[in-house]
């Protein structure tokens, strides 16, 4: 009897060790491209092109960073992305919350039908409406402009509305009934009860919206033409054509700079990223 217990303990220890071996291996693979990117960005040319590969630079240089900043004004391009992202996020989150509130808390004619339509639009590939929408914007004189990238966000986003409606539906009815009996206006109920309760969900979708905007290439490629208006994605995508040849050192430096805000945000707000999916509702 005693013997089986000790062997069971050893088996459990073995399992734990195996778990760490496999999980750490996976994590190393996941981190390797980042390590390689950072390492390359600090290498001098002949170390970049050395075989066998050199994991870490022997001689650390920041020349790649200065060169990258000469090729494209990376910080200005990041600022351009922010100029799109900030109003877009504000509009998208606020309007999505309003619409979700409408779908979650009011019974009006055709509500379920409209909600079904909204779900259907989530399936519709953006590509089908992409070209006609582009034609309309350029017809209205908005070519080489941020407006087409920002304004549609003020109509809300179907997936955010869907997510927030789920969240709002878990709010107990008595919360707002009391307020309504007191004669509070709908907007006040929304602002005083639903917005505070949904704060974590609102932060989560703001982060999603930011990541979506920061990483979007297709939309920005279509609507932005002139270099001074380039976003960070466009700057990176056109980097090689600007230098005429592929300069790996400066490219890695530029990529690293472009990723820093995103990685920093993920680490800083990881709670909201990681819990975003499982928070189906209000606790308590």
């Amino acid at each position: 009897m005693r013997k089986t217990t000790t062997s069971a303990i050893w088996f459990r220890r073995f399992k734990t060790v195996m778990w760490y071996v496999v999980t750490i291996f996976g994590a190393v693979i996941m981190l390797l491209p980042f390590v390689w990117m950072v390492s390359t960005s600090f290498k001098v040319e002949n170390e970049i092109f050395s075989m066998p590969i050199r994991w870490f630079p022997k001689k650390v240089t920041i020349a790649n960073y200065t060169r990258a900043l000469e090729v494209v004004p990376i910080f200005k391009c990041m600022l351009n992305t922010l100029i799109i992202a900030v109003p877009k996020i504000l509009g998208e989150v606020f309007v999505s919350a309003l619409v979700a509130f409408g779908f979650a808390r009011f019974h009006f004619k055709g509500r379920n039908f409209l909600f079904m339509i909204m779900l259907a639009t989530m399936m519709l590939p953006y590509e089908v409406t992409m070209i006609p929408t582009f034609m309309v914007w350029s017809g209205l004189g908005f070519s080489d402009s941020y407006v087409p990238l920002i304004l549609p966000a003020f109509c809300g986003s179907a997936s955010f509305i869907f997510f927030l409606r789920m969240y709002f539906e878990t709010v107990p009815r008595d919360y707002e009934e009391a307020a309504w009996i007191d004669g509070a206006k709908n907007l006040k109920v929304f602002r005083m009860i639903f917005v505070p309760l949904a704060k974590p969900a609102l932060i989560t979708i703001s982060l999603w919206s930011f990541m979506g905007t920061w990483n979007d290439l297709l939309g920005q490629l279509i609507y932005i033409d002139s270099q001074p208006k380039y976003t960070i994605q466009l700057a990176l995508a056109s980097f090689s054509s600007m230098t005429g040849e592929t300069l790996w050192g400066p490219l890695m430096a530029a990529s690293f700079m472009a990723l820093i805000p995103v990685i920093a945000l993920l680490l800083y707000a990881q709670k909201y990223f990681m819990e975003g999916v499982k928070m189906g509702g209000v606790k308590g």
Partner: protein
Amino acid sequence: MKKREKAGFFFILPWLIGLIVFTAFPMIAAVYISMTDWDIVGNAAFIGINNYKMLFSSEEFIRSLWVTVRYAVIAVPLIIATSLTMAVLVSKNRKGSGVFRVIYYMPAIVSGVAVAIVFKWILDPSYGLLNGVLSFFGIQGPDWLYDPDWVLPSYLIMAVWGAGGSLLTYLAALKDIPEDLYGAAMIDGANVFQRVKYITVPLMTPIIFYNLVLGIIGAFRKFTDAYVLGGAGKEGNFYMVYLYEEAFGHYRMGYATALAWVLFVIILLLTFIVNWTKKYWVYSE
């Protein structure tokens, strides 16, 4: 009560306007545009279904569709298997699980051009990290993106690396499986494989189904990586890249819109097919 009904309508109004302006109207317009010969500048000439006829006899269309289909068929199951494995691993509550969760999730969130560029460098035939590591083991690596036969594997490597995108949905689903189910199975003498086969997998099928649908749609809409990386012999010419080039490179708006409709129909059909198979493998209570 009447007043409150109106208020609800008022709240959804912004979305409704968006639906009409940015979805319904462009969709109707897209039907018409797809039947015209239009290069933006001039007038649109109505040519009926000619664009569709042209498209199906176009070699480039067939090739880009073939590239995309091949990628989807392999990448989608590969991504599901990878991220499920990751989820099972990091769902354990051991020291450091939280850190591993973030690390596995990170590649999915930092997508975009920068990551594609980094992979182009990693896959560089002469000085890239991958071939460097392979040569350490005495293996002469292929030319990856510069060899038509190795373009697809290159994209698959990237796809697996970024598989953590659906990790969180699997984690949430794993958490929802009641612990006592496993306890009861263990009392009945079920070993670990039986427990995975009869409890974990069936209870995960709804979320696998959800990610399968999203995965197929995502694979067919692949753009950013392919736009940046390309690939020898046009093997990296994914459907969306082809569509983009036709529309904004050659300004063939009518033809490109027809391409978009075909993509839409393909995605719709696949979704229906997957949905039809649901009753054979997705567990429902």
